[in-house]
């Protein structure tokens, strides 16, 4: 591979939902250990693009994909094992989706399905350390340490979303995909999660879909602007915001539509 830093190398990606084309010739390189924001109006294909990266679109009937997506140089549609792919590429959703089980069990879910059985005392300790570490890294531990074994559904929306981040971190992924992770949250919870992103990018490659341009401006290193399924412009965030090359980007950034 020519560019050593690219975590994802997407070339000429087309995607159809049945007869409707949702992505059109999207090419994009996503750098490791950076935060890449995807912006654009509703229905522009940014979430669809995100969901291609860990093949969550496989779940939808009638989806057809053409083009290549290389992850660490390997084609994700080729021989790659989708389970292993999703283990290494974590996803945080728009709406917090904790499982109806305890806080602890939510975080332990990933490690458990990947074969970490807490049978012996040492394994049990390892699991609870992993859970604690993940909660600490998601900036949630102090708020839930006294109620680890109570239902996660009792947490506030912002806490639930950080729990979902902790749940992903516990699988020890390499990439975090986030689909409008703060759109259902209040400003304080949003600020907490944005602060968290900055810490996380040291260890993870983060791709975040957001319809909040201020958020993209605050947190991201690079920004891609999608419109009607096309990647109109993709550049360092500063350039997109202060010196957009495409007229459409400029119109969107300046709030003329969207």
């Amino acid at each position, binding site marked *: 591979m020519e560019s050593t830093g690219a975590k994802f190398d997407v070339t000429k990606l087309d995607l159809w939902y049945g007869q409707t084309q949702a992505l059109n010739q999207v090419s994009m390189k996503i750098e490791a250990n950076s935060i890449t924001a995807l912006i654009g109006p509703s229905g522009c294909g940014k979430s669809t693009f995100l969901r291609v990266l860990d093949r969550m679109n496989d779940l939808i009937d009638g989806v057809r994909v053409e083009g290549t997506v290389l992850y660490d140089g390997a084609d994700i549609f080729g021989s790659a094992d989708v389970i292993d792919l999703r283990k290494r590429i974590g996803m945080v959703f728009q709406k917090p*989706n904790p499982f109806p089980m305890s806080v602890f069990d939510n975080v332990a*879910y*990933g490690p458990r399905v990947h074969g970490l059985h807490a049978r012996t005392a040492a394994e049990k300790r390892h699991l609870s350390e992993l859970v604690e570490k993940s909660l600490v890294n998601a900036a949630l531990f102090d708020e839930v340490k006294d109620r680890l074994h109570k239902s996660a*559904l009792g*947490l506030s*929306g912002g806490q639930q979303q950080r729990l979902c981040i902790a749940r992903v971190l516990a699988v020890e992924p390499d990439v975090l995909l986030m689909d409008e992770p703060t759109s259902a949250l209040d400003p304080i919870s949003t600020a907490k999660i944005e602060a968290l992103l900055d810490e996380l990018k040291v260890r993870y490659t983060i791709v975040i879909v957001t319809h909040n341009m201020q958020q993209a401006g605050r947190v991201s290193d690079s920004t891609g602007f999608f419109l009607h399924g096309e990647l109109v412009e993709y550049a360092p965030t500063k350039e997109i915001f202060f010196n957009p090359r495409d007229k459409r980007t400029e119109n969107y950034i300046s709030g003329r539509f969207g």
Partner: protein
Amino acid sequence: MKRRILFEKGAEALLFACALVSILTVVFITVFLFQRGLPLFAKTSMAAFLFGTNWEPTAATPHYGILSFILGSVYVTGLSLVFAVPVGLSVGIYLAELADKQASRGIRAAVEILAGIPSVIYGLFGIAIISSVTRTLFGGSGYSLLSASIVLAIMTLPTIINVTEVSLRAVPRELKEGSLALGATHWQTIVRVLVPAARSGIIAGVVLGMGRAIGETMAVLMVGGNAPIMPSGLTGKVRTLTMNIITDMSYAKGDHLTSLFATGIVLFVFILALNLTVQLALKRSISGTEGSAGA
């Protein structure tokens, strides 16, 4: 203007009256059943009735012990669930999660037909096939607790299948995606997230099926053997509460007839308890869903 309001009020009153009919029917049935059944306890004690094992309603000194039939109902229903729950759950999971459109359409049609078959046909099927199979395999007459349970299991399958499927489909899509996105397999997602999330609904379905099973009369009558004795094992003959009522009803007189109404009361109480359980389970499942949408 006035006429329209009058019409509105009239329609409302009519619908309310219809709704009232269903409530009144329940009340009437309850009152009537108790009124006809309770006088038995002037002749024999409730303990002797419920825990007596001796059913000799026409003897010179009659005995009205129905414990054998209570146990018969409990055993037959319980055993039928042992067969029906694993199969029903599996089919429900298959329909909700695994089957492609064509397969699920076919299976659903079959399940609907299964639900619509009259119980006497199940009885005929039980006599023709099930009793002879159990006779060949396990001995005895073939008219037994085991045969009755198998027939009942088939009859309760549609309820359990439908409720399982519906409950699984009602689990928010986000939970499934959340699990798969963590790298869980589809199967792990089903077993560890979807089924637990749908648990209350599934339990309600099982209890609903139980209610159907315990109230079923004709099919069990045809294959159960209907001997008024304590159930003596899987291949032994069995009489349930429903069978007891239907068998003696054609000729019973006086206290004997009253004892059949009293048997009906016991059955009624069983059904009532099961229905309350269903309501509770469903209420819990609804509040559970609200919690997951949670703020």
